[in-house]
C-alpha cells in the first residue's frame, strides 16, 4: 500500500499553480502538506504544521536561502514566529532539535506536481 503510493504519490497541482518562491498547501493522505517552489524551480514538500506556532501555516511562509557552511540552504520562514526550516531535511535552522516531516516531491515532464510518502530518513539530497 504505502510502497505503491511511493511510486505514484499524489498529484496535487500543476507547477504553474505554485508561484516561484511561493507555496501551496495540499491534502495528501489526509495530511496537510506544504508544497514549496524555489527560485530554480525545485519543488519541496514538508508538513504544513508549524510545531512552534502550533498551527497549519508553513505554506504561507517566505521562501529564500540561508548560507550555512558556504552552502545556500533553501528554507521557509514560519509566518507566525519566523523560525526557518531547511526544505531538504525539515530541520529547524534556529533550533536543530526541532524537525518537521518532509515528503518526496517531484515534477513530471508535463508539469504536474506529485507528492509522495513521508520521508522517514535523511533524504539523499537530489
Amino acid at each position, binding site marked *: 500500500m504505502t510502497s505503491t503510493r511511493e511510486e505514484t504519490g499524489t498529484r496535487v*497541482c500543476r507547477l504553474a499553480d505554485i*508561484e516561484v518562491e511561493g507555496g501551496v498547501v495540499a*491534502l495528501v493522505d489526509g*495530511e496537510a502538506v506544504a508544497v514549496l517552489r524555489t527560485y530554480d524551480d525545485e519543488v519541496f514538500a514538508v508538513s504544513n504544521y508549524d510545531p512552534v506556532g502550533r498551527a497549519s501555516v508553513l505554506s504561507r511562509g517566505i521562501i529564500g536561502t*540561508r548560507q550555512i557552511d558556504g552552502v545556500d540552504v533553501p528554507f521557509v*520562514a514560519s509566518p*507566525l514566529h519566523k523560525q526557518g526550516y531547511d526544505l531538504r531535511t525539515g530541520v529547524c535552522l534556529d533550533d536543530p532539535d526541532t524537525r518537521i516531516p518532509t515528503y518526496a516531491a517531484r515534477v513530471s515532464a508535463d508539469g504536474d506536481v506529485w507528492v509522495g510518502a513521508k520521508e522517514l530518513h535523511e533524504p539523499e539530497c537530489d
Partner: protein
Amino acid sequence: MMAHLRHRLVVVGHGMVGHRFVQAAIERGLTETHDIVVLGEEPRAAYDRVALTSYFEVGDDALSLLPLGAYDDPRVELRLESEVVAMDAVEQTVTLADGETLAYDQLVLATGAAPFVPPIEGRDLPGCFVYRTIEDLEAIREAAEGARVGAVIGGGLLGLEAAKALSDLGLETHVVEMAPRLMAVQVDDAGGATLRRHVEDLGLRVHTGATTTAVLGDDHVTGLGLEDAEPIAADVVVFSAGIRPRDALARAAGLDLAERGGVLVDEQGRSTNHPTVWAIGECAAPGGRMYGLVAPGYTMAEVAVDALLGGSGAFTGADMSTKLKLMGVDVASFGDAFATTPDSLELVFSDAVAGIYKKLVVSDDGTRLLGGILVGDATAYGLLRPMVATDTNPGIPLPANPEELILPASRGGGTGGVVLPDEAQVCSCNDVTKGQITAAVADGGTCDSPGCVTACTAAGATCGSCKPLVKSIVEDYFTAQGRSVDRSLCEHFALTRQELFEVVAIHQYTSFDQIVAGHGRGRGCDVCKPVVASILATQLNGHVLEGANRTLQDTNDAYLANIQRNGTYSVVPRIPGGEITPEKLVVIGEVARDFGLYTKITGGQRIDLFGARVEELPLIWRRLVDAGFESGHAYGKSLRTVKSCVGSTWCRYGVQDSVQLAIDLELRYRGLRSPHKLKGGVSGCARECAEARSKDFGVIATEKGWNLYVGGNGGATPAHARLLAGDLDTETLVRYLDRFLMYYIRTADRLQRTAPWVDSLDGGLDRVREVVVDDALGLGAELEAAMATHVGGYFDEWKATIEDPDKLARFVSFVNAPDVPDPHISFRDERGQAVPEDSAGPVLLGATIPVGAP
C-alpha cells in the same frame, strides 16, 4: 490670622519662576494648608520666555507653560492682567491697579526683571522697543512691516537673539555693542571675534566698542547717533542693554535690597527684614547677587516651597555655565572662563577658516580643569562640564595631554569619551554616568547603538546636549572592543534600508531579482524581502500582491489580513477618524454574525473581526466592499489610523473641526507603505482627548490653526511627540506632513518608528525642522511630489483583489481540495464569542475524504 483658618499665600508675577513655584506648591501639598492667589500683569499665563524668539515660528500656544490657563487645583486662583501697584509688608497687604486690596499671610515676589533702557535722548520715540514679552515681539513684528533697517543696542546673549528676530523679519540688521566684543560676559576677545565672523556671515552688521549717544528722529525713529562714529540709519530700534530686577514694590515697602538691585533674601528666599515676604527668580538677590538665568530661578522656587513646608533646603549659588545655539552657532562658556584664578593656564585651539575657537583654563599644574570657552563647535561641552573643578567640587582630573579634549579628531583629538572615568556624570539632566552607558552596550548590556542607550538609560533624553558625548562614548567603546556597529540588513544585503532605498530609486528597479542580482547575494529571507517589498511599494505604488513581488510580502501583507495564532486572520475595515454611520455599523455586525467572527473594538477607534479562515477572506471582503468599506491596512507597515476627538462640532471646548482633519489625513495617507506602522491623531483643543501626542504625528487645534507634533510612540518605549511647528493653516500643515512622512520613509531603518528615527538623526528634531520646515536640503518639492504620486495612485487593495481571479487563487484551504476546511482550526466559546482552541498537533483527516486533482 487665626491658626485654625487656612492661610493665604499671594504670588506676584506669573512668569517662568512664579509658575514653577505654584507647580511645586501643588505637587508638594502646600495647597493643603494655603490658598494661593497668583497675580500676573501679562495678558496670558506663564510662557517659555527662554524660547521667546521662536514665537514667530511656533506661536503662543506652543510657548505656553499652562495651555489651559488654569491650574487643576481649586485652591489656586490665577488672575491675569492684574498688576500689583503697592505692597504693605507690615499690614501684609497688596494693592492692585484697580484699587482692590488683598491681605496675605505669605507673599512671594516673582516679578522677574525688566530690560534696562539707558537714559539717552529719543529713547521713547515710536519705533523703540524692548525684547522681553510676547507683546514686545508682536509690536516689533508690526513695526517691521513697513521698515527696512533695524538696530539692536546691546550685543549680549539677548541682543543677538533680538537681532536674529529682526533679520528673520527681513530687516537689514545692525548690532551696536559698547564693549569691544560680542557676548562680553560669556566669551573673551578671541571667542568674540570668532562669534562676530559667524554673525556677519549671516548678513548682520556688527559695531563693537560703539557707544550709542542718542536715538535720532522727530516723531519716529530714524537712526542711532554714535560716539565718534557715523550715525546709523534705522527705523526700528531694540534696546537690549542688560536687565534690572523688578524690585520697585519691595523698594517702596522698605524691604532690604542688594546694592546692584534685587530683593535681598536669605538662602531660602526669605526677605532679610520681612520674614513673611519671599522673593524668587530674577527679582531676587540671594546673598546679594541676582541671577539672569531660569535654572537658578527654578531652584529658588523649589527651595522656597520647601521652606514654607518647614524644610531646610537652601540655595547656595548656581553654575552660570551656558551653552546655546545662537543663529546656528554653538557658544559655550563654563567655570572660570576668563582665567581669573591665580597662575591658571590657558590652552587654546582656534581655526579661523572653520570659525572655531576653543579655550580651556587649567590649574597651574595642569591637572585640573577650571573653565573654558567654546565657539563654533561646542560638542566637547558635555564632556568638559563634569570635569570642571570648583572650590566645592574637585571635578575630574585632566588626562596627560588635555589639549586633545579640544583638538578636532583629525588632529589627534576626539570628543574623547575615553578620558572620562566611569563615575563621571555624562547626562546632567538625568544623572547618567559614563559607567552606566558603557554597561548598557557591554556584552551583558542590552544596547547596540547610541539611540538605544538614550532610550534605555535616558542619557540624552531631555535637553540633548550630552548626545554627542553619549555617541562618542559608545563608539569609542566599540572601537576599543574591536566591535563595529554592523548596520547591514541581513546576510543577503550589506546595506542599510536607507541605502537600499536610494539604490532602488537611482536604478529604478522594479523587482527583487534585479536588486539582489545587482547589490545582494543568495535568494533573500524573511528580513530583506519585506523591506524590498515596502521600498518597491512606496516607489511603484503597485498592488502588493502583483506578480513576483507577491512572494516578498510579509505574513500579514501576503493575505491582506493579520494572521492569528491558529492560522486564521483578522479583518479590519477602515473607519476614517473613527467616525461611522449606523448603517455601516450594522453591516459590520451582520458580517461578523454571518461568518461567526469574534468582534472587538480596537485601540485605534475601529473594529477588528477575528477568526476568518483564509478562504473566507474574499467572501467577507466582498460584503464589506459592497457596503462601501475599504482595507484598513491593519496588516501593513503603513498608515493605521488617525485618531480623532469629537472636536468643535460637538465639544464645548473645541476650537477646530478635529474630526474633519483626522478623516482628511487618514484618507490622504491610507495605504502608504513605510519602514514601520504609522499612526496619527487630531485633537480639537489643548485638552488633547485624542492623545495625539502619543502618535507618530499628532495635530492639536489652536485658536489660530494647528500645532504639529511628531515622533510620538506608545508601545514598548513610549514617547511624547514634540512640536515641529505651530499655528499652521491646514494647507501648510499638510505640506509639512507630506515632507515629514516621505523623509521618514526614505531615511528610516527597517522597523524603526518615527520616535527612535528622529532621535537617530544628527541634530534630532532640529534636523527634522531644518529639512521639513526650513527646507534646508531643498528636498521639499521632491518629497511633496512623491507624496502626491502616492495620493494620486491610491486604490483599495481588497477591492482590486476580489476582482482579480489570479489573486484570489491563493485564498483556498487546500490547493487540491478547495472545499475541505482546514481541520486544524477549531473554536471554543468565550463570553459568547468564538475564540481559538489550542492545537494538539497535526490533524490527520480520515481517508474517507475524497481527494483528487482540481
